[in-house]
């Protein structure tokens, strides 16, 4: 054994040095191939489609320059979808933050014991554990004109006749937003809870010595300490909410009369019901550019923290 190993010494070192140089490429090869084939190439393709006419549907699509973009940016339907996405996103993110903050503060309170804390935490996380397709079906049941929420609202005389929340143009956007608020706050809550647990106790001690009330402590200690988490979570949430598709698609499908049409459903319909893949690609590229801008801000905020 020993002799064999000594005998192999030179070649071992040689191969080790060689392996040291080529090994990392072997290790990253599957990832690199996949990311290039199914991430870099598709992005190039979608940009290509967006500046051509008759992408996918015709064999040799012709170059169209920016006409798809111009058509899109002068289409009131596009702006309607953009505006809806904005309203939906801003109200969802604000509500996620408020609910997430409220729940995490309650869970972090010293006034509750460990067991109730654990129980409430699991209950509060529940919405996060269900997939969008299931949440959509569930909320259709809840918000049905004959459903339980209409019954409850009527029994406390908040509403008169039953409301078809997803079907009525005046309530549909509200309904999808409420559903999305319910579906999305837990991740905010978990991150904020983690942040709260990381706030040094002596900061509160110092504030108490200075005679700060609990409310003052919240605004002068808790909130500034949570600021980095709030900012990064808000940006992630903006990214996710602007991309929300399944919840809308499976409840209102963007309707009625486009009041819940989002950029995601608008783009999807252009592509897969209208088969105008070129226009859809232009819309997709606009969404992509917006997302990348948010992402750049996100990465910057992460960097400035560390």
């Amino acid at each position: 054994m020993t002799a064999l190993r000594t005998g192999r010494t030179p070649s071992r070192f040689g191969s080790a040095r060689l392996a040291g140089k080529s090994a990392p490429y072997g290790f990253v090869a599957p990832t690199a191939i996949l990311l290039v084939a199914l991430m870099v190439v598709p992005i190039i393709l979608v940009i290509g489609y967006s500046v051509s006419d008759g992408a996918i549907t015709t064999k040799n699509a012709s170059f169209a320059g920016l006409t798809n973009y111009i058509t899109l940016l002068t289409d009131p339907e596009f702006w309607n979808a953009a505006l809806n996405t904005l309203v939906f996103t801003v109200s969802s993110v604000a509500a996620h933050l408020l609910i997430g903050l409220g729940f995490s503060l309650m869970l972090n309170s010293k006034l509750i014991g460990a067991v109730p804390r654990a129980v409430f935490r699991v209950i509060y996380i529940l919405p996060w554990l269900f997939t969008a397709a299931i949440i959509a079906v569930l909320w259709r049941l809840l918000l049905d004109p004959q459903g339980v929420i209409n019954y409850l609202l009527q029994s406390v005389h908040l509403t008169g006749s039953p409301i078809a929340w997803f079907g009525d143009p005046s309530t549909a956007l509200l309904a999808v937003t409420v559903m999305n608020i319910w579906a999305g706050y837990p991740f905010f809550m978990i991150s904020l809870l983690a942040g709260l647990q990381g706030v040094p106790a002596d900061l509160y001690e110092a504030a108490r010595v200075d005679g700060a009330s609990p409310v003052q402590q919240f605004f002068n200690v808790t909130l500034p300490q949570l600021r980095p988490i709030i900012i990064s979570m808000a940006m992630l949430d903006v990214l996710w909410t602007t991309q929300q598709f399944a919840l809308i698609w499976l409840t209102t499908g963007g309707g009625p009369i486009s009041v819940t049409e989002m950029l995601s459903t608008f783009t999807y319909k252009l592509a897969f019901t209208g088969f105008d893949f070129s226009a859809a690609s232009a819309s997709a590229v606009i969404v992509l550019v917006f997302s990348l801008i948010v992402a750049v801000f996100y990465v910057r905020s992460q960097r400035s923290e560390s």
Partner: protein
Amino acid sequence: MATLTTPAKTRATDARTDGPVHGGVTAAAAVHRAPRKIGRRVALLVGLLVGAVFAGFPVFWMLISSFKTNTEIFAYPPQIITQGFSFDAYLAVLNDPEEIRFFINSYVVALSVTALTVVFAIMAAYAFSRYEFRGKKVMNVIIIGTQAVPPIALIIPFFGLMVTLGLYNTYAGLILTYIVFTLPYAIIMMTAYFNTLPKELDEAVKVDGAGAWTALWRILVPISVPGIVSVAVYTFMISWNEYLFALTLTRTNDLRTVPVGIQLLIGQNSYEWNQMMAISIMGSIPVLLLFLIFQRYFIGGLTSGSVKS
């Protein structure tokens, strides 16, 4: 508010007689403090319960609706304790080969994606953690940037690509697609994990004549089980729950996954609500179980990530 403070005050009187008085605090101060503290505790409890109703009621309603008969679903007034309590909806799902197929498809896809993602992520993370190499920075940017790419921007070229490659409406097409979405974050998680392990561990093995490959699989992987498990759980959840690509890249019902399958029931059986709720519960069980088992771990992982930043 007034109704809240009254019971709190009466309870405070009890607290004064038999409650412990803190050392160093005068009796008067304790009396002054106790009702405030109890009032706060009651307010907190009320807040917690309101929150629990908001978060939990829809899930509770899904659960009880799955035990109802379809005629009871919209009974007026709504029934909480149902007369027709039964597992019929579950049995109906289990006896429908098409619905069983949705589950099989979901498991095949999610488990394949998980296995492949874990292996590829371990390999890539090892290179990122232990080597400096040309192209590392570019790959890093792509891996981070990928997470910001909206699915809706990729669905169109994916559709085109999968049709061209003959992978449209196949397991392979769906599995490859999901790996691209799960792999970047899996690599980030795995690299962070490997970075916590001292380099001396694998260096020592390499000096003994083993290659990097052996060092990785024999030494690093066995001690990285916790990190691998969280990558696997994360990956499984993402693939189990995915909807947009499952909807677009498959065409026939024998390839539909659970999230897409549920929606098909809406049209097909003309609103068998109890069955839809039953399949929703059954479709959520894998993720619920994974979460409950690895909860401590999951939240722990998130905690360390957030606190560090």
